[in-house]
C-alpha cells in the first residue's frame, strides 16, 4: 500500500466494549486439543512425557483441570527455547535427566514407573534440597515455570481462578464470599 495515499481514520465510538467482547469469544481456545498437535522445540518425546508428569504433580487435577491439561509442558518447552538463555535451557534439560538418575538410584526404576507416593517423595526431597543441590535448583525453576504457566493459562486463569474482564464499574468493598476464590 502506498503510504502517501494512506488514510488515518480516527473513529470515535463507544462501541469498543461490545466489539472487543465478541473478539474475545472468537478467540477462545481449547488447550486440550493443542496437546495432540503440538511439536516440541526443546524436548524429546521421552523428556516431554516426564515433564507432563512433573507439572501435573506440582499442580494436579482437582475439581478443575491441572497443569497437564493446561498445556504447561508446552509453555515451558517454548519458553526454554524462545525466552531463556542457553545455560538456563541446558540446566533444565539436564535437570530432567537428573530426575531419572535419582529415581534409579533410590527406587531402582525410572520416575514414570514409580508409584505416585514415591514420585512425591522424590520431589519433596528435591524441594528440601533446593537451596544447595543442583537438582534442587532445577526444581525451583520447574516449580516457578509451572506456576506461571498454569495460572496464566485459560484453565488456570478462568477455571481455577476468577478471571474478570471489563466489569463496567469498580467496587472497592464487597464480601469475599461473593467471589469465593482468588482473582487471576
Amino acid at each position: 500500500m502506498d503510504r502517501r495515499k494512506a488514510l488515518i481514520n480516527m473513529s470515535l465510538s463507544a462501541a469498543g466494549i461490545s466489539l472487543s467482547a465478541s473478539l474475545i469469544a472468537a478467540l477462545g481456545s481449547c488447550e486440550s486439543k493443542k496437546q495432540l498437535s503440538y511439536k516440541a522445540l526443546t524436548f524429546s518425546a521421552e523428556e516431554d512425557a516426564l515433564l507432563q508428569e512433573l507439572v501435573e504433580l506440582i499442580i494436579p487435577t482437582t475439581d478443575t483441570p491441572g497443569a497437564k491439561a493446561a498445556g504447561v509442558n508446552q509453555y515451558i518447552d517454548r519458553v526454554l527455547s524462545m525466552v531463556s538463555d542457553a545455560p538456563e535451557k541446558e540446566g533444565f534439560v539436564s535437570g530432567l535427566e537428573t530426575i531419572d538418575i535419582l529415581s534409579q538410584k533410590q527406587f531402582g526404576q525410572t520416575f514414570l514407573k514409580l508409584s505416585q507416593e514415591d514420585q512425591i517423595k522424590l520431589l519433596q526431597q528435591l524441594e528440601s534440597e533446593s537451596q544447595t543441590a543442583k537438582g534442587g535448583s532445577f526444581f525451583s525453576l520447574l516449580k516457578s515455570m509451572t506456576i506461571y504457566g498454569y495460572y496464566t493459562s485459560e484453565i488456570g486463569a478462568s477455571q481455577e481462578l476468577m478471571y474478570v474482564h471489563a466489569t463496567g464499574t469498580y467496587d472497592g468493598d464487597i464480601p469475599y464470599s461473593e467471589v469465593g476464590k482468588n482473582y487471576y
Partner: protein
Amino acid sequence: MPINTTFQIGEQAATYDAIVIGSGVSGGWAAKELTEKGLKTLVLERGRPVEHRKDYITEHKAPWEFDLRGQLTKEEKKEYSQAVRIGYLDKTALHFFSKDSESPYVEEKPFVWARGYQVGGKSITWGRYTFRISDLDFEANLKEGVGVDWPIRYKDIAQWYDYVEQFAGISGEKLGLDHLPDGNFQKPMELNVVEKHLRKRIRELYPERYLTIARAAVLTEPIGERAPCHYCGPCWRGCSTGSYFSSLSSTLPAAAATGNLTIRPFSVVHSIIYDPETRKASGVRIVDSETKETIEFKAKVVFVCASAMASTQILLNSKSEEFPDGIGNTSGVLGHYLMDHHLGMDVNATVPGFLDRTTRGNRPIGFYIPRYRNIGGDSDMPGFSRGYGFEGSAYREGWSQAFGMEGFGVDFKNKVKEAGEWRVGMWGFGETLPYYDNHARLHPTETDEFGIPKMVFNAEIKDNEKRMRQDCLDSMAEMLENVGCTNITAEDNAAGAVPGFGIHEMGTARMGRDPETSFLNGNNQAHEVPNLFVTDGACMTSSPCQNPSITYMALTARAADFAVKQLKSGNL
C-alpha cells in the same frame, strides 16, 4: 453517533502556518490549539501511523492469548536491550515502544531512553497521573539559589491547567492543599476498603499526610464520544472507548476536525532551518524514513514537541553559521540540567485483617500520597531539599503468592486458590535537582541510519537525591508500622534511580529569565529565535515530584495562545 474524522497523509504542501514536531502529549496539544486558532499545521511524526481503536491490537486480550504469555523472546530482548531495564516491557504493548537497535544512543553513564516513535507517541502508554505543580515548586530554585528561577508562577499557568483538564478529563479528589492545587475534577475513582482504612489511620497519626485516589486522565464521566472507564485495567494497550486521554483519542481528532491538520508520519526531523536575515526559523528539514529522501517544509512558527531528549537532539543538530552549537544555543545550556524523577524507593507491607472483604473490577489507577517533606513548618528536613510523593495500591495477594509458598500438589493448589492477605505496595517518586553536569550531547562522529548524530547521555543522581531516598524509605516504613502494618520491607532498588527509568525526562532546554543561562523564556519561546517554541519536558526549569504531563499540556496550550497572538499582531 460516532464521529468519523478522516484526514489524509501525504501530498503535503511545502509551506504551512505552523509545524509541530512530534504527536505525543505535547505535540497533540500544540496541533489542537494551533489548528483551532486557524493555522494550517503540519505535524511531523518520525514513527508509523497508529489508528485509534483499529491498531490497539492487544486490547482486551487474555493472558493465554499471547504466545509465551507475553514474555519477550531472546531476539526481542536484544532489539530492546536498553529499554527492557524498565522491567515491565512485554508483548502487551511492545509495539508502542521503539527498538533501541534501530534508534541507537550512547550511555556514558547508565541511561534509559524509552521511546514511543509513532503517531500518538508515548501518550498511548503513559501513566495517566496528572498533578498540578504549585508555587512551592516554581519558587524553589530562587529561594534555594539552585539552578535558575522559573520565569512563571502558578498564577500564570492556573487558567491553562483548568483549560486542559476540562478537555482531557481528569478524575480525582479535591484536597485543598496549596502544594498540590485542586482542579475541576470529574468524580474520583474509589479507594478500596483497605486503602480507606489506611487513609483514616494515616490522617489520625499524621495530620499533614493524605492518601487519596490518584488524579488521572481516566474518565469517570463521559466527554463527547469518550466513554467512562469500563475497568478492564491495562490502559497502556490503547482504549477503544477513548476513556483515557491520548493524542489519538482526544487532541488529534479535535485538530483534524478543523480541517487545518496534516500529519506526516515516517518523518524523522533532521534539523530546524535558521534564516539569518529574518533571524527566525524558516522551516524544518526531515528525512523520510521509508525513502531516505531529505525534504524541507517551511512555516511561520515551529513547535518542538518531540519528547524532552529528542527535542534537544534536534535543536543541537540544527547548526548554522550563527548557531554552531545548535539553534538558539549561544548560552550553551542546551543539553544541560537533565532531570528525571528518581524511582526504586519501594515499600511493601501486609495490612492485617479484612479477610472477608475483596474488590470487583480492574481499577486502572492506584492511590497517591502527596509530598509531605519540605512543605513548610515541621516538615522541613535538614538533610535534603525538595521532596517526593508516593504512588501505590492495596490489594489481596493473588496467585503470585504461589511463588513464595512451599510444597506442591493438591493442598498447594487449593491454598493458591484462596485470596491471600491484604498487601499494600508503594513506590516513591523523587525530585531531582538541576545539575549542569547532568547532560545529553551529540556524539561527535557516530550517527544513526538517517545521518543524525547519536545522543550521548551522562547523568546521575547526586547527594541530595541519595539523602532523600533514605528519608523516603525510612519515613514510609515508620508510618506503615505506626498504622499497624506488618512484614514491612523498604528497599532501595538502585535500577530505579538510573536517569530515564522514570520516563519523565525533563530539562535540557530550560525556561528562565536570562538568555545567558536559559534557552526559553516564560512563554516557552526560544530567547534567540522568536518563532521557535519548545513545550515538552525539555522546558522544565526544575523537576517537581508530581507526574509532569499535565504541566506540559498546560504550557503547550499557553504557548500556542501566545504564539498565535504574536503572529496575528505581526510580531513573528
